[in-house]
């Protein structure tokens, strides 16, 4: 005998541990199978793109911290690179190396959270994530040393970085780089062949290489699908052209591969840091900006705002979550005419329906975890 059943709607979120913030997934179910998945977002929408049109280019840097708050350095970097491209500013070598070091430390911190929370979603409630939070704290200590903040860092500046690192930063970072591979080995022992993680993630949420490219997916998700595309290699910015590292690539494009790619990327970040700490030159950390030249005669000396020439620029970098791009249109005034953020968390959600329809509710939680969303960046 077959029973006729009605489709059933379940709200995952907006307050749910698996949504990593205020994000809602509306699942239509037939029993345990998902028939439709609808995303409801905007709970954290602050309209940064509009606010930025009322603020100067420098005043907009703190906004970029608050988009992807788990990876403030890369948000800063993408924005200042777009403005530098617009103005044609040449950044001093030491600042480029500092940016590389900070961006890689940030990638480690962000991947720690990504992997820890993913283990949470797989059912390892809070134990792995606490290990990773513990290690991430050490990276945040380094950031505090360099710029005084731990989360919303506001370290990058148009033309360089806000200040040079203090003398104690280098030995502390070297110590961290020496010790951290042991922690990664610990995570690998704990999680990589863990039966529950493998059972819940292998063959789940598969995205083929062609599907991933067509859906504009980037970062570890794209590489998990077997596409060796990393902007650090493809279009080297900061000092990435001078360091040696490999692109971690998966084969199956499933949730497990995305998780393995993130762990492999942590090893590569350590490799980059080891080289960068040896190769960083001495020198200035900030370029002379083309602002002081327009000081009107007879006026009191006051800071002048940066006025980029009329034009537009699209600056993009590889953030821990994928391609983060800033599209800036300038009309020659001190504030951007248009300020658009291409955020990887948001665009990586595009194929969520494709991945979840036909799967079970438990799979949907793991698939969403593997996208590694930050809601501040989705809603902006």
């Amino acid at each position, binding site marked *: 005998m077959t029973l006729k059943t009605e489709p059933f709607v379940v709200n995952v979120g907006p307050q749910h541990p698996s949504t990593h913030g205020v994000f809602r997934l509306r699942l239509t179910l037939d029993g345990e199978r998902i028939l439709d998945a609808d995303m409801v977002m905007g709970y954290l929408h602050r309209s940064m793109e509009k606010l930025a049109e009322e603020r100067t280019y420098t005043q907009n840097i703190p906004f970029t911290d608050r988009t992807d708050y788990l990876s403030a350095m890369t948000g800063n970097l993408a924005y200042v690179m777009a403005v530098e491209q617009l103005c044609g500013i040449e950044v001093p070598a030491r600042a480029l190396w500092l940016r590389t070091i900070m961006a890689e430390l940030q990638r480690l911190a962000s991947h720690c959270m990504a992997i820890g929370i993913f283990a949470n979603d797989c059912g390892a409630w809070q134990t792995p994530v606490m290990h990773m939070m513990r290690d991430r704290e050490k990276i945040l200590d380094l950031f505090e040393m360099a710029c005084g903040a731990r989360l919303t860092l506001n370290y990058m500046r148009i033309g360089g970085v806000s200040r040079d690192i203090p003398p104690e930063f280098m030995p502390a970072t070297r110590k961290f780089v020496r010790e951290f591979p042991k922690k990664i080995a610990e995570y690998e022992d704990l999680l990589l062949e863990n039966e529950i993680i493998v059972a819940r993630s292998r063959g789940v949420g598969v995205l083929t290489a062609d599907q991933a490219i067509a859906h504009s997916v980037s970062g570890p998700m794209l590489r998990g699908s077997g596409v060796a595309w990393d902007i650090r290699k493809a279009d*080297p910015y900061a000092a990435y052209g001078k360091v040696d590292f490999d692109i971690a690539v998966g084969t199956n494009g499933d949730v497990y591969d995305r998780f393995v790619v993130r762990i492999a990327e942590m090893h590569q970040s350590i490799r980059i840091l080891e080289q960068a700490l040896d190769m960083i030159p001495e020198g200035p950390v900030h370029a002379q900006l083309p602002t002081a030249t327009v000081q009107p005669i007879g006026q009191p000396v006051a800071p002048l705002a940066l006025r980029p020439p009329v034009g537009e620029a699209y600056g993009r970098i590889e953030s821990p979550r994928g391609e983060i791009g800033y599209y800036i249109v300038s009309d020659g*005034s001190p504030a951007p*005419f248009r300020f658009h953020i*291409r955020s990887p968390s948001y665009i990586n959600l*595009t194929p969520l329906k494709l991945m979840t329809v036909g799967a079970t509710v438990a799979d949907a939680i793991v698939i969403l975890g593997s996208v590694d969303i930050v809601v501040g960046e989705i809603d902006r």
Partner: protein
Amino acid sequence: MTTIVTGLEIAHKIEQRFPGAVVEATPEAAVIDTDRLLDVCTFLRDDDDLRYAFLNSVTAVDQLELFEVVYHMTSIRDNKTTAIKVRITDRDAPRVPSVTDVWPGAHLQEREAYDLMGIHFEGHPDLRRIFLWDGFAGHPLRKDFLNMPGGLMAGLERFPGEPGESLGGRG
């Protein structure tokens, strides 16, 4: 290093295939005739010399007298990137064909542009507001949303700390 294909170069390629489809070519992007957009996008994605299979970003810009929709795209195979634009002069009902059939990655981004800028993407499978709620009045990224007292448009003429006349309470 990624090769940046300028708007002039890509306009030349498009013009060879679709004469008259390029309205204007600037160094930043080739401006395409709205009616030919889908043909041009399919050509950019599928042509063996181009293969722009990865759509980086779709966004809209309010240029006061017209709207621009900007498409940035990358060829992962050849490591090159380019941009095209379309211009819409009808401010009351801006319409442009949706490119979701060419690049499914435009799905959420077109919804965002619809929500915040009010551009109707014709043929989009699910064009609803995404960040703001249904019934929200207006599209906040438009320059005429919240006109300032005295008819000022959004934007700064002067940095508040700079010398000059008083800004009259703004800034």
